[in-house]
C-alpha cells in the first residue's frame, strides 16, 4: 500500500559527476516496496516546482530505501542540495514490479546510464530467490558514468561494461553487447535506460526469442494512475488500453506490448 511520509535523509553522496545516492529512513515504504517500483519525491515545499519527481527505488532495506539519481534539471538539482539529516517528503511505493521467476535459467540486466537504478534491487532479489546471479551490461556514454560496477560484482554478477567512447569495456552500444552474450529463449532480459537503447535491446531479444521486460520513464504528474498524463503507446486493441500509464500498468512492461516506433 502506498503511503506518504516525511523521511529522514540518512546519507546523501555523490557517486559520479552529477549522480548521487540518497538513503532514506522510510520503514513504511520499505515494508511494502518490491523491485521495479518507484517513489514520488517532493523536492521542496511551496508551489514551485509544482510536481513531485518520480524516482526508482534502488535498494530496499529493513528500515528504508535508497535512490540513485542524476541531477539534471531544476528539481533534481534542488534535491542534490538537501543535506543529510534533513527530511524529505516521499510517496510510495508506486507502480508494478519486475516479474521474477524462480526457474529462470539465465537473466541479463541491461542498464543505460542511470537506468541501472531499479536493476540493482532486482539483481539482489533474483539472487535472494536462489536463482543464478544475473549477468549485467552496464552501458554509458563514458567510463565515469558507469555506475555500481563494484556493488554488482560483489553480489556475484558478471558485469560487462560498454561505453560509447570506448573509455572502458566494450566500445559500442548496449544492444550490441547483449547480442554478444547470445541470449536465447530461456533467457530473461530486464532493461532500463534511454528509449532508443531499450528499443534496440528489445530488437535483439525479439530476434532471439528472448523475453524482455523494460522499465519505462514518462513525465508524471500524479504517479497514482489518476491524471492519465504518463502514458506510452501500446499495441493493444482495446481503445482505452492503447495508451498505458507508466505509473500504473508500468513502469515495468513486457517489451512486446510497447509500440517502440512511437518514440521516434
Amino acid at each position: 500500500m502506498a503511503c506518504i511520509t516525511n523521511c529522514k535523509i540518512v546519507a546523501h553522496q555523490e557517486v559520479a559527476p552529477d549522480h548521487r545516492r540518497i538513503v532514506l529512513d522510510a520503514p513504511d515504504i520499505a515494508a511494502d516496496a518490491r523491485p521495479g517500483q518507484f517513489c514520488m519525491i517532493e523536492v521542496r515545499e511551496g508551489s514551485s516546482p509544482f510536481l513531485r519527481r518520480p524516482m526508482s527505488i534502488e535498494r530496499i532495506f529493513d528500515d528504508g530505501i535508497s535512490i540513485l539519481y542524476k541531477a539534471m534539471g531544476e528539481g533534481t538539482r534542488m534535491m542534490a542540495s538537501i543535506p543529510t539529516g534533513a527530511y524529505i517528503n516521499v510517496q510510495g511505493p508506486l507502480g508494478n514490479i519486475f516479474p521474477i521467476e524462480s526457474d529462470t535459467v539465465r537473466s541479463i540486466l541491461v542498464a543505460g546510464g542511470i537506468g541501472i537504478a531499479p536493476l540493482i534491487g532486482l539483481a539482489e532479489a533474483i539472487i535472494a530467490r536462489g536463482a543464478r546471479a544475473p549477468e549485467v551490461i552496464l552501458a554509458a556514454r563514458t567510463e565515469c558514468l558507469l555506475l555500481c560496477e563494484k556493488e554488482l560484482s560483489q553480489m556475484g554478477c558478471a558485469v560487462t561494461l560498454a561505453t560509447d567512447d570506448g573509455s572502458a569495456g566494450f566500445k559500442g552500444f548496449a544492444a550490441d553487447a547483449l547480442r554478444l552474450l547470445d541470449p536465447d529463449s530461456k533467457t530473461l532480459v530486464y532493461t532500463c535506460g534511454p528509449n532508443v537503447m531499450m528499443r534496440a535491446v528489445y530488437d535483439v531479444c525479439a530476434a532471439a526469442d528472448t523475453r524482455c521486460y523494460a522499465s519505462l520513464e514518462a513525465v508524471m504528474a500524479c504517479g497514482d494512475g489518476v491524471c492519465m498524463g504518463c502514458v506510452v503507446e501500446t499495441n493493444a486493441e482495446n481503445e482505452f488500453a492503447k495508451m498505458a500509464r507508466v505509473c500504473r500498468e508500468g513502469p515495468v512492461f513486457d517489451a512486446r506490448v510497447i509500440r517502440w516506433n512511437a518514440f521516434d
Partner: protein
Amino acid sequence: MPVNLQIDLGGLTMKNPVTVASGTFGYGAEYADYFDVSQLGAVTVKSLSLEPRSGNVPPRIVETPSGMLNAIGLQNVGMETYLREKLPFLREKKCVIIANIYGSGPEAYASLASRLEAEGGADAIEANLSCPNVHDAQNARGGSLVAQHPDQVALYTQAIREATKLPVFIKLSPNVTDIVEPALAAQEAGADAVSLINTLIGMAIDSETRKPRISNIVGGLSGPAIRPVALKMVWDVSRALHIPVLGMGGIATADDAVQFLLAGARAVAIGCASFRNPDAALKVVQGIENYCQQHGISDVNELVGAVKL
C-alpha cells in the same frame, strides 16, 4: 462549537462543500490508499464518454511555474466500464458522486445523462463543455469550445436538462471575454449550478528540440498559477447568477478554498493539487472546519459570498 458544513449545490446535498475536480482524482478508488474518500462532500469522476477513448498521443503533460499544462484528450474507460467496474467502489463507500460527462453533440450528453440516471451512476451530472484538448468536429465552431458560445451552451444544457432529473452542473471555460455570458446561458437553459473554471489554454516549447512540450501543441493550464483568475471569475459569476457556483482552479489549501467561498462559490473542487498531495481535498475539509471554528462561524453557508468590499 459544532459547525454545520453541509451545503446544497443545486439540489445536491453535500456533507461538506468540498469535492475534487474531474480528471484529477480518477474514479476515487485510486486514492483510497491515502484516505477514506467518502469523507469528501462528493467525488467528481473523470469525464465519461459513451465509448472508451484513448486520448492524445504523449507527451501529454508538462510542469510550468506553479502549475502544469495537460492535454490528456479525455482518455477514459467509457460509460459501460465505468458502471461495471468503477461505480461499485463509489457506491460501496457511500460516496456522493458527481459524474462528469463529455460527448460529441447535445444528443451524446443527453444519452450519457439519462443512462447515468437510469443506472444510478451519479447523484449529479457535471457536463464538461470546456475541455480544450479534444478535437471533435461536432463540438467545435471553428475549433473553439462549446463553452465559448453562450448560444451553444444553452443548446447543450437544454438537451441534458430534458434527459435527466438529476442536478445538472455546467462546466465552463475561462477562455472567454466575459464568463458571465455562458454562465447566464446555462442558468436560463435550466442548469442547477455552474462549475468553473476549466483550464486556461497554454503552451510550452522545448527550446532545445524546438518542439512543443505537449504533442497536442497546446494544453490546459491548471494549478496555483491560475488561482487568481479562477477566483475573479467565480466572483463575477456568483454575483450575476441565482444558481450556485462550484468553484475551482488552483485550490490547494483551506485558505484558498475559503477565498473561493467568500468570493461566492457554494462549494469548491480540488484539482491538480491532489497530484502533489493525494489527501489535499480532505485537508481542505478539515481546514475549513477549523477556520469556521476559529472565526465563530456556525454554518459554512455564511461564508458564501461574504467578501467585504
